[in-house]
């Protein structure tokens, strides 16, 4: 017979203000196997914890019930208390009488009292059947793989590598740098974006502990925290980067002109190209889709001219695996495709209606216009520029419900840049709200207002073309009047959304995405860089829209978590995972497809039955590194062979009986 102690917490007035805690403790004293039952103001406090330890010793308790808050909050705390008291830490059971009772039934005290008592009765029933559980250990591969080479991936890679661990950085584009390196200036300090990001890119290339794969994507992930195996496909670049010196002859002589992705479609690049002069690696790739040789079978100009003989039309995709202990998703963002749905702004038919990212390239000295703000349609300097905010953001009917966070600030920056570069220009900004939370941000916006940017509060209902000019029609909700502005250039602040293919990355990494496709953190407040999958971390805008400082801070946070993991020789595993009773298992394997973590597998065993020759049989087995203890296998097992430790059928049925009988 176990000797169970019950401890009822007041949590100040959170619980004590609604129900009668001493009354609960007194009644619980009569429950089966309970030999000690008390109440206390704050059980999680130091004196509260010491009280439990003392009671364990005095009353020789071997099971403990804590009736207080959610186990998500303090189960770990009380497990440590049991360990300090010399008990197996898994012999504590919590009754959640705060979140599940007093917080939601504050107005119905009598029923709350009855419910709290029932929850304690349930917890006692389970506690009496708890068994000691023991953690096991798994080794750690001290390397880390990062998906995505934007500023988030770069920062994480540098921080982890500087801490002495090897990093594999996988980027699908021909260069690292992501979106940040396309930007002209950064708000609110107006630092040159390329100037502060290209040194970091170069540092990645030069770091002895970073292995960089560009034009590469992850294809398969197996294993578990500390021991992942990742299959990577590195696409054919048709240029041997070992031989190539990056001299540039090939792209100078290539006859094909292709819209440049790096310049957001505003400039041209060649079919053999580096995306921009500071690209890392600074070696070209061939865009097979547009290459004249690949499309017509004739040309080979680049191969003929290459002094190093590096062009290799026969190059094929390489597929290989890397073993790592931790994974970081840093897949970033892309801009919402406004031209698909915003017919009122012309569906992309007007060349002088552009996105903020295109404006960044227009205003950038290395961009297609050499930094002059010129209209894409006719190359003239615009006199009047209209900015429209929230295109796709905060618009549930056409785009996304959320605020993209960065647009208010970059629009203020763009407006200032127009005033600075085009003397006498008129700048209008149509906005719903101006949101400037950040260090120095509000001051920056006020500067834009002071310098003459006209902020009009209201939505734009339509952009027309009337001859050469664009007419922007909207409403000024502060004046309560419709307004029309004749514009030469219209810039749309389009929504931030997860990068294309983010859903597939989430699936490969075994992590969740929210309804907007952003990766889900383990806890939005307290575990923002972790995921629910052990060993997989998040950095940057893949989890929500972020500006550069927040992205870099989160990337360093993810790096700290990775380093923390990789600095350990071994990991202790959660013992509350599934186990298979091989004698009962019939080998139906219904549990294999339901497992979301791919933790169940087929195993061959040899059975020795008295009076029979040894017999080989297939049964289910649990990979303890992968299992997260969700219990899906337990639910489908017809033979009752799979059970989750700490949530066995016997324990759960005892709880049901305690509640219902």
């Amino acid at each position, binding site marked *: 017979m176990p000797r169970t102690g019950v401890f009822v917490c007041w949590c100040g007035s959170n619980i004590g203000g609604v129900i009668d805690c001493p009354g609960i403790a007194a009644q619980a004293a009569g429950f089966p196997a309970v030999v000690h039952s008390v109440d206390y103001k704050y059980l999680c406090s130091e004196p509260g914890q010491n009280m439990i330890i003392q009671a364990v010793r005095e009353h020789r308790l071997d099971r403990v019930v804590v009736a207080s808050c959610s186990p998500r909050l303090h189960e770990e705390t009380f497990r440590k208390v049991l360990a300090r008291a010399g008990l197996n830490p898994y012999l504590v059971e919590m009754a959640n009488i705060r979140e599940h009772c007093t917080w939601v039934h504050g107005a119905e005290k009598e029923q709350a009292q009855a419910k709290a008592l029932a929850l304690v009765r349930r917890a006692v029933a389970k506690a009496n059947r708890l068994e000691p559980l023991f953690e096991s250990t798994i080794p750690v591969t001290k390397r880390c793989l990062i998906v995505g080479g934007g500023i988030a991936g770069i920062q994480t890679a540098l921080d982890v590598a500087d801490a002495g661990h090897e990093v594999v950085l996988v980027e699908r584009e021909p260069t690292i740098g992501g979106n940040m390196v396309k930007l002209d200036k950064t708000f609110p300090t107006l630092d040159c974006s390329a100037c502060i990001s290209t040194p970091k890119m170069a540092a990645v290339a030069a770091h002895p502990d970073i292995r960089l794969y560009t034009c590469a994507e992850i294809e398969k992930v197996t294993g578990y925290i500390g021991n992942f195996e990742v299959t990577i496909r590195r696409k054919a670049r048709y240029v041997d980067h070992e031989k190539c010196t990056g001299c540039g002859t090939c792209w100078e002589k290539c006859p094909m002109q292709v819209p440049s992705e790096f310049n957001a479609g505003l400039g041209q690049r060649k079919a053999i190209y580096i995306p921009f002069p500071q690209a890392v690696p600074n070696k070209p790739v061939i865009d097979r889709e547009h290459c004249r040789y690949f499309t017509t079978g004739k040309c080979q100009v680049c191969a003929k001219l290459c002094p190093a003989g590096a062009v290799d039309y026969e190059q094929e995709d390489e597929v290989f695996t890397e073993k790592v202990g931790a994974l970081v998703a840093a897949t970033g963002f892309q801009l919402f495709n406004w031209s698909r749905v915003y*017919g009122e702004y012309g569906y992309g038919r007007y060349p002088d209606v552009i996105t903020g990212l295109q404006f960044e390239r227009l205003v950038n000295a290395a961009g297609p216009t050499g930094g002059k703000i010129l209209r894409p349609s006719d190359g003239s300097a615009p006199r009047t520029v209209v900015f429209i905010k929230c295109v796709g953001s905060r618009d549930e009917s056409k785009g996304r419900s959320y605020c993209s966070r960065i647009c208010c600030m970059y629009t203020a920056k763009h407006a200032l840049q127009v005033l600075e570069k085009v003397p006498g220009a008129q700048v209008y900004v149509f906005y719903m709200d101006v949101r400037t939370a950040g260090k120095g941000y509000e001051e920056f916006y006020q500067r834009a207002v002071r310098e003459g940017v006209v902020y009009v509060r209201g939505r734009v209902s339509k952009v027309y073309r009337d*001859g050469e000019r664009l007419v922007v029609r909207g409403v000024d909700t502060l004046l309560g009047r419709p307004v029309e502005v004749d514009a030469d250039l219209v810039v749309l602040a389009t929504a931030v959304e997860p990068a294309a293919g983010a859903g597939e990355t989430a699936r490969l990494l075994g992590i969740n995405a929210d309804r907007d496709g952003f990766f889900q953190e383990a806890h939005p407040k307290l575990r923002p860089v972790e995921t629910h999958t052990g060993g997989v971390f998040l950095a940057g805008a893949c989890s929500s829209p972020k500006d550069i400082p927040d992205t870099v801070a989160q990337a360093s946070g993810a790096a700290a978590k990775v380093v923390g993991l990789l600095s350990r020789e071994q990991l202790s595993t959660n013992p509350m995972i599934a186990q298979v009773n091989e004698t009962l298992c019939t080998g139906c394997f219904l549990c294999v497809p339901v497992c979301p973590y791919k933790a169940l597998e087929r195993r061959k065993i040899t059975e020795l039955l008295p009076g029979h020759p040894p017999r080989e049989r297939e049964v289910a087995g649990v990979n303890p590194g992968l299992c997260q203890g969700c219990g899906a296998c337990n639910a489908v097992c017809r033979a009752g062979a799979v059970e989750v430790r700490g949530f066995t059928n016997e324990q759960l049925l005892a709880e049901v009986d305690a509640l219902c009988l």
Partner: protein
Amino acid sequence: MRYSYYSGCSLHATAREFDLSTRAVCRRLGIELAEIPDWNCCGATAAHSTSHLLGVALAARNLALAGEQGLDVLVPCAACYQRLAVARKEMDQNSELWKRVVRITGRDYTDRVGIKSLLEVLAGLDSEQLAAQVVRPLEGLKVACYYGCLLVRPPAVTGFDDPEHPRTMDRLVRLAGAESVDWDYKTECCGAAQGVSNEPVALKLARDILEVASRAGADCLVCACPLCQSNLDARQGHVNRAYGTSLKLPVMYFTQLLGLAFGFDERELGLDTLFVDPRPVIRALG
């Protein structure tokens, strides 16, 4: 192909030429029109703005009559089309409203007939079938297609063309051999609704449309709504007086344009009844 034909009041009066040209074009294309017997007002303008129930009930009675014919309804007028389509949608979604309407009209609306705008039906025809009827391609004629407010909106009710950048009429115009100009006032308000109560507003709206179409290089404007047509056509003189402009842009129905290409003569299509005479422009084509 046979349809219940709901002409509505305009096509018997101010827009008689829309009726004439519709019947001519449909006849040529083998579309049989069976006018709904004892049809009544569609509920546009006064009715639906004073009583929601009356607006729905008027439209519903017409639909019930068409149901007795067992044919889908074809509607040339944009306002009629929109009223019938809205009434049907509202009744489909609200069974209480449906029951009340059935009680008021005394006619059970159970045969759910389809409601099609004339533009939708003609644009839905096979291109070759249409092209085969073109005996006089209107080569060299630059046309601004004007859709107005109701024909393609709200998209949840109409749904046959893009509400921001409609293109069905442009396609028909090109099949007739003419050139449709690219312009952006296709769905702007023509001002007809303000014509009586606030004429200055109506004049400004009409001027904007006519001027933008002229600047886009159009020789004429075609539309599919009797209100748009009469407002832009009959009010052009007022616009010129109010703004000192000298606009002279013929405003025709798209059926008249098709009829010309199909070889009907001007009088058969009622081209002689418009305020801004389109015949000089047509004749200049040779």
